[in-house]
């Protein structure tokens, strides 16, 4: 439904040029929920705005439903009002001078639909977001969550061929965010419309998407299903963007297909997965929830990797504990329901398939502040 080929865009400001998107190609299928994930400034919003027709890209091509809406080569640029899309803005962009009903009715009024049709479609859209009771209310009197839902109703009321979301949950509080997330997913399934969703929140991306595109500095880093992005990130940046991650260096001693073994920071031999491994230094990733810790080495199954370390810090988070375990010079984050005292000697164990050898990358992602490191 949406095809983007070699899209590139540079912003020119008084402070110089900024290459927001540098040659991105992607395809979103009918009914697919497609998420652009990355930190602010990575170009994800720019891509979305290019699809919407709110920006003039410098190069490439964009097709919506098979129709070319932008082509640098052929000099085509279809203005947003002719693209038949629905979009939810980060600020919701609810018009303050119109009522809830008129806000939602706007796309139909512009298309000069008959009165009866406007009435029934607006009410159906408001019903879908659970706001039918507030139709007559002034848009200024809405809470943030209600505004967000009006924005969604307005985006879907004219049955657009494409739905675009620009960080629609970032201005909501945490609890509301979880509920709305589920609602957006349900609506999108119901409408079965190609959807592009922009976010920097990994939980949103993982829970909502059929496919995720991780971006950095205007370039695609990895595309794949949420499971792939989470379990098999290509590099440190993607691993970090998709959730909490531990990284440590190993010395690879042997490779067998996509299995390898090497020496961990504490001197143990561990096994890991990596398709393009070679003998020599490498860096691996394990998710904190895939690590188990125990003070008793005998309890660890034989086929698991094991590292020996000391608990440096323990934080109680309700559902589980978060441990900082020093292994050699490295500190690992471990999520575990098991309660262990600080300064205990422990064994950290994990399955070889959960330990992923990462590809090389030029720059390091920003490390989170780790007070114990």
């Amino acid at each position, binding site marked *: 439904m949406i095809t983007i080929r070699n899209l590139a865009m540079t912003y020119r400001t008084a402070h110089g040029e900024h290459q927001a998107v540098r040659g991105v190609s992607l395809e979103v299928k009918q009914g697919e929920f497609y998420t652009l994930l990355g930190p602010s400034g990575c170009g994800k919003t720019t891509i979305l705005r290019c699809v*919407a027709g709110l920006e*003039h890209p410098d190069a490439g091509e964009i097709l919506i439903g098979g129709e070319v809406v932008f082509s640098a080569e052929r000099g085509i640029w279809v*203005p*947003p009002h002719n693209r038949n899309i629905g979009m939810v803005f980060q600020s919701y962009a609810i*018009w303050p*001078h119109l009522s809830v009903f008129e806000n939602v009715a706007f796309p139909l009024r512009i298309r000069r639909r008959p009165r009866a049709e406007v009435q029934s479609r607006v009410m159906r859209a408001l019903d879908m977001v659970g706001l039918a009771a507030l139709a007559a209310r002034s848009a200024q009197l809405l809470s943030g969550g209600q505004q967000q839902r009006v924005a969604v109703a307005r985006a879907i009321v*004219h049955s657009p061929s494409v739905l675009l979301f620009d960080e629609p949950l970032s201005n909501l509080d945490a609890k509301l965010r979880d509920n709305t997330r589920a609602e957006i997913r349900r609506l999108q399934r119901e409408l079965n419309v190609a959807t592009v969703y922009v976010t920097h929140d990994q939980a949103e991306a993982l829970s909502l998407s059929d496919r995720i595109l991780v971006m950095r500095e205007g370039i695609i880093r990895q595309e794949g299903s949420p499971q792939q992005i989470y379990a098999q990130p290509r590099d440190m940046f993607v691993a970090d963007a998709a959730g909490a991650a531990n990284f440590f260096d190993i010395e690879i001693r042997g490779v067998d297909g996509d299995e390898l073994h090497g020496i961990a920071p504490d001197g143990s031999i561990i096994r890991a997965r990596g398709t393009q491994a070679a003998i020599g230094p490498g860096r691996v990733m394990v998710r904190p929830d895939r690590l188990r810790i125990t003070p008793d080495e005998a309890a660890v199954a034989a086929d698991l990797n094991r590292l020996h370390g000391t608990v440096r810090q323990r934080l109680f988070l309700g559902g589980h504990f978060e441990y900082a375990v020093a292994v050699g010079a490295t500190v690992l984050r471990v999520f575990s329901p098991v309660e262990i005292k600080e300064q205990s000697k422990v064994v950290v164990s994990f399955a070889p398939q959960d330990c992923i050898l990462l590809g090389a990358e030029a720059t390091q992602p920003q490390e989170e502040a780790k007070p114990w490191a």
Partner: protein
Amino acid sequence: MVTAALAASFAVVVLLAVVLWLSFTDGAPGDPALAYTLAHYADVFLDAFTYRVLGNTVLFAVIALAVALACALPMAWLMERTDFPGKPVVFTLMTVALLIPGFAVALGWVFLVHAKIGLLNRALMAVLGLGAAPFNVATVPGMGMVEGLSLAPLAFIMVAVVLRAMDPALEEAAAIAGARPVAVMWRVTLRVLWPGLLAAAIYVLTIGFAAFDVPAILGLSARIFTFSTYVFSALTPTAGAPEYGEVATLSVIMAAIAALLSVCYRTAQRQAPKYAVVTGKAYRPRIARLGRWRPPAVALVTLYFVVAQLMPLAMLAWAALLPYLQTPSAAALALVTLRNFTGLPRALVLRAIGNTALLMLLVPSITLVLSAAVSWVVLRTRLRGRAVVDFLAFLPLAIPGIVFSVAALLLALFVLRPVAPIYGTIWLLVLVYVVARLSYGTRMMNGALIQIHRELEESASICGASTAGVLRRVLVPLMAPAMVYAWIWIALLTYRELTLPVLLSNGSNLPFSFLVWGFVQASSYGQASAASLLMLGLMAPALFLYWIAARGAGMIAPR
């Protein structure tokens, strides 16, 4: 701080109270047998001429507003919402235009379209073979148009601010919903911005209502009055002593109308944020591509600057260089002389420059100290009556300059004479200038103070700083850029001010603007032009300073 704030409030109250008091009294002021009366009001309201002046003023202000908006709206839209080239240049020129003395531009217009001597009129008469001048600037519509052209920069800046405060996503959402650009403009942009635009329009109308420079220079000699010039001429009668009671009454009426307009302005302004979607996010405005419309857009903006600013100022220069005004030609070029400059009374000019310099130093400094005190009391203390202080500091915005001039005159003549004889001294000017600029100063200081989080001060006092220490170590350094900017701006306004000193100056305390005014009144237009040019020339370095400070404070250039 509290004392300073109270002093500022007191000054405002006293000035206005004197006018009000005199409007209700009869007989020679200072006379112990003074009687209270409504006779002045009866006289004024029963005089048909009052209504003629009122009609003139309303027509004048409305035409000025229409012309100002017709120029400002398209230009503001071009600057804020399109890829118009060279925006900082336009913003800088607009700011400069805001500061060019109104009387200098008005003088230029006299030379252009005066019924008898206007060069444009004469040229058109010669070319088209007309028997009479096609334009007459000494009419209410003529004055209104000139005022409108000179109010356009103010309207431009106010409209630009309104346009900037809108979340562009509101427009983008409309475009995505299927609205064409014209429909977006009509159905969303204008409706959302309506309260803000209305407030800007009322503000410009208020300024037009109170304008003095243009109607004084263009209309006084033809005895076409607006309220400002009517009050002025009532105080400077050709024969006999001025009727102070009646002048006071006129001033009270004028102030009341202006105050009413200000109330409308405040109401409209309060409506504005209702529609502004404040997300705390830095807006990246939606920029329309001009494409092939770029050359006509540039031509339009250039046309404004040429017609509204360059042409009258060029005429001023031309008039200053000739012994008597005539159409530019080779023959006229041969007559070019500097006699108008060299013939200026040197001692008087030097005194005027000295006075102006003194005013430019004292007025902004005192105004800012008082304004900062008022802001601090209003925003940072819980003193009772601080709302009154706030209101009194806002009041000068509503009062026309000529009313302040009258008020200061009456105060000096009838109240202060026995205790502090400051009539005819520069101190009277300082007093009235400071009071008149108080609203601007407090608004600037409020803006600066609001941006400083209270906890910054609180943490300083927790760390052991006294109130004075907090002030010196935290507040003043943080507010410094805004203060420097406001200081220079008030200094420049002081430089261009003609209305306030027009009733208060004489040969010894005159500022430069009053010198020019003297030449105009004596019909020495050549010398008036020369003096105006000299004034503009001396202003250049100050303008440059302003430009540097404004850039530092991020006040010039849209982004």
